[in-house]
C-alpha cells in the first residue's frame, strides 16, 4: 500500500493519519474534507462561542499530507480504485478510509427546514447570527449534545427551552431519579425543561409541542441524535446497517479489503459509537491492520463523566442490576446510585448527578467484589480509603491500571508529575489525578509539604498561620512553629508572606535580614556582583522627557542599557553605593521602583490599542496602566507578568502571561495561568466579555487566591494545573464564590492598593536604610576594586575573574 485516501477530515480522520505517520508510514496520504477548515476539536465546540479561537480548536497540521478542503467526495469506483469529487477531481487509491462522520438527526417535523443543527463551526456562526435580536430559543434533544447546545444558546443570552422526547433528561446516562435531580439543577439556571413531549410543528417565531403547548421562540436547534454519513458506501455497494452505519469487521474493514471505515460512520459489532474515545481507538485499530497487525475493536467502555451547564453527571458500567442502592438529596441536588449483583457482592455500575466523586473512586471496581458496604461507599465517602486491585483501570483515557501505577512507584516515581510522565495516566482528562495521589500515599510515599528543614508546613499553611494569628515577624513565626534560624528558602518565603499581608517596607526592622540580595538592595544582582536598575514604565507608555532622563542617568553613571521584554529599560552595572544616587535622580524625575528584583508584579505589557490602531476595539494601554498601578508592589509566591491586547490579533502576547486580557467588542476576555520561559503554556480563558469593573474584581480575587494558596516559587501556570479540579474549580471559587471567600480576597487587595508606597522613594528618604548601600562598611566611599569593565559595542561589559585562578571548583 502506498497511496492512502481518507474521506472526511474530522477528529477521527486526524487521529488515523497522525497514528499512521507516527508508525513510520512513508506512502502518499490524501485527505478530503468537506468543510473549508482543517480538523478541529468538536468536543470543545461550545467553547468557540465563549471566545476560544478557531486556532485553539484546530488539531496540529499533519506534515507531508495532502489535504483538500471544501472538497466533497461524491463517488467511489471500487473496480478502478478511484474516488471522485464534486468538482471533478479524481484521486486513485490503494487503500481507502471512510471517516465521513455523522449528520445531526432532524426529525420530519413541519417547518424543520428553518431550524438549525449543532455540529460544525459553520452551524455555530449561523446560530450566533440568528440569536442576535432573538429573545428565546428551543433546543430539541435533552441528551449530551442537546445540553451542550442549550449551554451555547444560554451563553448567547437567549431564554432557553429544552424539549426531550424521553420522560427525563440524558436518558442514556441517568435513570429517572437522576433525571429529576438534573432537571432541578437546570431549572435553577433559568432554563425550561419540557420532557416527555415531541415537536408538532415549527412555525415562524413559535414552536408547537405534541401536548399542545406553545413556545414563542425564533431560534430552534436540533440536537437529538446523529445518523451516520454512509451514503458513499451505500452508493458503491458496500453493506450498511438497517439504521445506518457502514458495516465493518473487528479490524474496522468493510467487505472490500481495500476499504476501511472508522468513527461515527462505522457500524461495528452492531453499534455506532459517537464518543471521541472509542472513535480514536477505532482509528488506531484500522492503522494497525493496514500495517499488517492484528488489533481488534471489541466495543468500548461507554462510561462518561461530564460537566454540563456546571452540573457533574457521570455513568459507569451497567445501568441496571439485580440490586441497587440509592442516595438522593434533592435539596443539595445530589443523586448517586450503585447497581450490584444478586448476591450483593459484585459492583455492576453506577449513576451520579451533582457529585461525580464515586465515578473516580468506584469505576475501577466494576465487575469486581465490592470494596466496602454500598451505604459506606455512597454516604460516608470512605471510598477514599479503598485498595484498588492491580488490574483495576485507573486512567481510562490512556488505559493505565493500578498495577502499572504501583510499578512506577516501586521504580522510584514519587509524585504526580512523575507518574504522568512515566505512565501517561492523568494526562488527558485529568479526572484520575486524585486517584494517583491516593496510590502514592497508600504506597507509603510521603508527599512532604515541608518548606525546608526549619518548617514542617507548606507555604500555604504558613500563609494561613501568619494571617490568622496575626504574626508580624519571622522570629515570632519560627519560635511558634519552626526550628533553627531559617535559611535562603524559608526566609524570603516568609518575607513575601509578610509583605503580601502587611505591605510594610521590605527593609523595615528585622524584615531586612530576610530578603534575598535583590530585595535587600532593591535591584537585580548580575554575574560580577553589580546590580541592574529598572524603573517602572506602566503599560510601556513613556514621555520623551522621561526617556531623556533615563538616558542621562545611564550616561552619567556609565551604565549598560537594554530594552527589556516587558516594555521597559534596564540599566546594568551599578555598584551598591551608586544605587541611591541613581534612584534619587529617577525619583526626582517621577519614576518609581519597577520591582524587577522582587517576586512581585513586574509589568503589564500592552499593544497600542484602539487609540491609534485601526484594528483595536478597546483602549488596551489605558487598561494596562490602570492594572499596573493597581497591582504594583504586590508581593507574591513568584513573579507576576501581565499584558493587555486591544483586539484578537493579540499583539501584546497576553496569553503567555500569568494573567492576560484580550479586548472584545463587548468588553474583555481574561486568561490566566500562562507562561513563557522554560515550559511555555498558553493561559486558559477564565471569563469572557466582562466589563472593566468586573474584570478588575476577578483579577483581584485571582491574584489573592494565588498568593494565599500557591507554593513557594510556584508560577500561576503550575498552580492552576496543581489545583484539584483545575480551571473549573478556580472558576467556581473566584467567579461563583463557592467557598464564600471572595469578599475577603477583595478586601485584602483593597488594603494592598490603599497602603502601597514606592519603596525606592521611601528608601532614599530614610538615612538609616541608605547607610546599608555601601561596598565596604569600613570605607563607605570606596568602590569595590574587583569590579572592572571593558567596552563592547560602545557600552560597558563586565570583566570576570577567571575561575581557574580561584583555585577551587570546576
Amino acid at each position: 500500500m502506498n497511496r492512502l485516501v481518507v474521506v472526511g477530515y474530522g477528529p477521527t480522520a486526524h487521529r488515523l493519519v497522525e497514528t499512521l505517520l507516527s508508525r513510520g508510514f512513508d506512502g502518499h496520504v490524501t485527505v478530503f474534507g468537506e468543510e473549508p477548515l482543517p480538523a478541529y476539536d468538536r468536543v470543545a465546540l461550545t467553547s468557540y462561542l465563549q471566545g476560544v479561537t478557531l486556532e485553539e480548536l484546530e488539531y496540529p497540521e499533519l506534515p507531508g499530507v495532502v489535504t483538500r478542503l471544501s472538497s466533497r467526495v461524491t463517488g467511489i469506483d471500487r473496480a478502478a480504485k478511484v474516488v471522485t469529487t464534486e468538482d471533478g477531481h479524481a484521486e486513485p487509491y490503494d487503500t481507502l478510509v471512510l471517516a465521513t462522520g455523522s449528520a445531526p438527526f432532524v426529525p420530519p417535523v413541519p417547518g424543520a427546514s428553518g431550524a438549525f443543527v449543532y455540529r460544525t463551526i459553520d452551524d455555530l456562526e449561523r446560530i450566533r447570527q440568528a440569536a442576535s435580536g432573538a429573545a428565546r430559543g428551543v433546543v430539541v434533544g435533552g441528551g449530551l449534545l442537546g445540553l451542550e447546545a442549550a449551554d451555547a444558546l444560554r451563553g448567547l443570552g437567549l431564554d432557553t427551552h429544552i424539549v426531550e422526547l424521553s420522560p427525563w433528561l440524558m436518558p442514556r446516562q441517568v435513570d429517572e431519579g437522576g433525571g429529576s435531580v438534573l432537571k432541578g439543577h437546570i431549572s435553577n439556571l433559568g432554563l425550561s425543561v419540557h420532557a416527555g413531549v415531541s415537536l408538532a410543528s415549527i412555525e415562524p417565531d413559535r414552536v408547537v409541542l405534541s401536548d399542545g403547548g406553545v413556545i414563542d421562540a425564533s431560534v430552534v436547534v436540533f440536537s437529538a441524535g446523529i445518523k451516520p454519513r454512509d451514503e458513499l458506501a451505500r452508493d458503491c455497494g458496500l453493506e450498511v446497517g438497517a439504521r445506518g452505519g457502514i458495516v465493518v469487521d473487528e479490524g474496522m474493514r468493510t467487505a472490500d479489503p481495500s476499504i476501511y471505515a472508522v468513527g461515527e460512520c462505522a457500524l461495528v459489532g452492531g453499534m455506532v459509537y459517537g464518543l471521541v474515545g472509542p472513535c480514536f481507538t477505532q482509528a488506531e485499530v484500522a492503522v494497525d491492520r493496514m500495517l499488517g497487525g492484528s488489533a481488534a475493536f471489541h466495543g468500548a467502555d461507554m462510561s462518561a463523566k461530564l460537566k454540563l451547564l456546571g452540573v457533574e453527571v457521570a455513568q459507569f458500567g451497567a445501568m441496571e442490576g439485580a440490586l441497587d442502592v440509592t442516595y438522593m438529596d434533592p435539596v443539595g441536588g445530589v443523586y448517586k446510585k450503585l447497581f450490584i449483583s444478586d448476591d450483593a457482592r459484585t459492583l455492576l455500575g453506577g449513576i451520579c448527578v451533582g457529585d461525580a466523586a464515586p465515578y473516580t473512586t468506584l469505576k475501577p471496581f466494576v465487575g469486581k467484589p465490592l470494596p466496602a458496604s454500598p451505604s459506606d461507599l455512597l454516604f460516608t465517602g470512605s471510598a477514599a480509603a479503598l485498595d484498588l486491585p492491580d488490574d483495576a483501570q485507573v486512567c481510562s483515557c490512556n488505559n493505565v491500571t493500578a498495577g502499572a501505577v504501583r510499578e512506577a512507584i516501586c521504580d522510584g516515581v514519587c509524585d504526580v508529575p512523575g507518574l504522568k510522565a512515566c505512565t501517561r495516566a492523568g494526562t488527558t482528562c485529568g479526572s484520575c489525578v486524585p486517584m494517583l495521589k491516593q496510590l502514592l500515599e497508600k504506597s507509603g510515599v510521603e508527599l512532604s509539604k515541608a518548606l525546608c528543614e526549619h518548617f514542617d508546613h507548606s507555604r500555604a499553611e504558613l500563609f494561613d498561620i501568619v494571617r490568622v494569628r496575626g504574626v508580624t515577624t519571622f522570629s515570632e513565626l519560627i519560635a511558634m512553629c519552626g526550628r533553627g534560624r531559617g535559611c535562603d528558602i524559608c526566609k524570603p518565603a516568609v518575607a513575601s508572606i509578610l509583605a503580601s499581608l502587611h505591605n510594610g517596607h521590605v527593609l523595615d526592622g528585622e524584615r531586612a535580614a530576610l530578603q534575598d540580595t535583590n530585595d535587600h538592595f532593591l535591584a537585580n544582582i548580575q554575574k560580577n556582583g553589580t546590580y541592574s536598575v529598572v524603573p517602572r514604565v506602566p503599560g510601556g507608555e513613556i514621555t520623551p522627557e522621561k526617556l531623556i532622563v533615563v538616558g542621562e542617568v545611564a550616561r552619567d553613571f556609565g551604565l549598560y542599557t537594554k530594552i527589556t521584554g516587558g516594555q521597559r529599560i534596564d540599566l546594568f552595572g551599578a555598584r551598591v553605593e551608586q544605587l541611591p544616587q541613581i534612584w534619587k535622580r529617577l525619583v526626582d524625575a517621577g519614576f518609581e521602583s519597577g520591582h524587577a528584583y522582587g517576586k512581585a508584579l513586574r509589568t503589564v505589557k500592552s499593544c497600542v490599542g484602539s487609540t491609534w490602531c485601526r484594528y483595536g476595539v478597546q483602549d488596551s494601554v489605558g487598561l494596562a496602566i490602570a492594572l499596573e498601578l493597581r497591582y504594583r508592589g504586590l508581593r507574591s509566591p513568584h513573579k507576576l507578568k501581565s499584558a493587555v491586547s486591544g483586539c484578537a490579533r493579540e499583539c501584546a502576547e497576553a496569553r503567555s502571561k500569568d494573567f492576560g486580557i484580550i479586548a472584545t467588542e463587548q468588553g474583555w476576555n481574561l486568561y490566566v495561568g500562562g507562561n513563557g520561559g522554560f515550559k511555555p503554556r498558553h493561559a486558559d480563558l477564565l471569563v469572557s466579555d466582562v466589563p472593566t469593573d468586573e474584570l478588575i474584581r476577578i483579577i483581584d480575587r485571582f491574584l489573592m487566591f494565588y498568593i494565599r494558596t500557591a507554593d513557594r516559587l510556584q508560577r500561576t501556570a503550575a498552580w492552576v494545573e496543581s489545583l484539584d479540579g483545575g480551571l473549573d474549580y478556580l472558576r467556581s471559587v473566584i467567579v461563583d464564590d463557592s467557598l464564600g471567600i471572595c469578599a475577603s480576597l477583595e478586601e485584602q487587595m483593597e488594603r494592598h492598593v490603599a497602603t502601597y508606597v514606592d519603596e525606592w522613594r521611601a528608601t532614599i528618604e530614610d538615612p538609616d536604610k541608605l547607610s546599608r548601600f555601601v561596598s565596604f562598611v569600613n570605607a563607605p566611599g570606596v568602590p569595590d576594586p574587583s569590579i572592572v569593565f571593558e567596552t563592547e559595542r560602545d557600552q560597558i561589559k563586565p570583566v570576570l575573574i577567571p575561575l581557574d585562578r580561584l583555585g577551587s571548583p570546576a
Partner: protein
Amino acid sequence: MTVAELPARVWVAVCAYTALLPERGACALVEGHQVALFRTFDGDVHAIANLDPFTGANVLSRGIVGSRGEEPTVASPMHKQVFSLVTGECLDDPSVSVATYPTRVTDGRVEVGL
C-alpha cells in the same frame, strides 16, 4: 614549633558592632582583603572571605544568613551554595571552602584578625 615562629596576629578594627545588622552580612576592606562579616542571632560575629568561589564575584556578604542543623550559615546570593560561617566549608560541596578570619569585639568595635 613555638608560638614565636608564627607571624604575629594583627587585629584590625573595622566598624562599630551596632553597624552590623542581626542575621545580615556586611563587607569590610581589611588590608586589601575583602572580608564578609556576619552578626548571628546569638550575637556572635563571624568573618569569611567575601569571594564566592563558584562565580568569582565578591558577594558572600550579601547572602542570606541562617542555620543548617546547629551550624550558622550563609547562602551565596549567586547560586545559593551554603557555607559554614564557622569553618568556611561549603556544606553543599565539601571539596570547596572559603577562608575564615578570627574576630573579636573590643569596646564596641568589631576587630578582624589577620
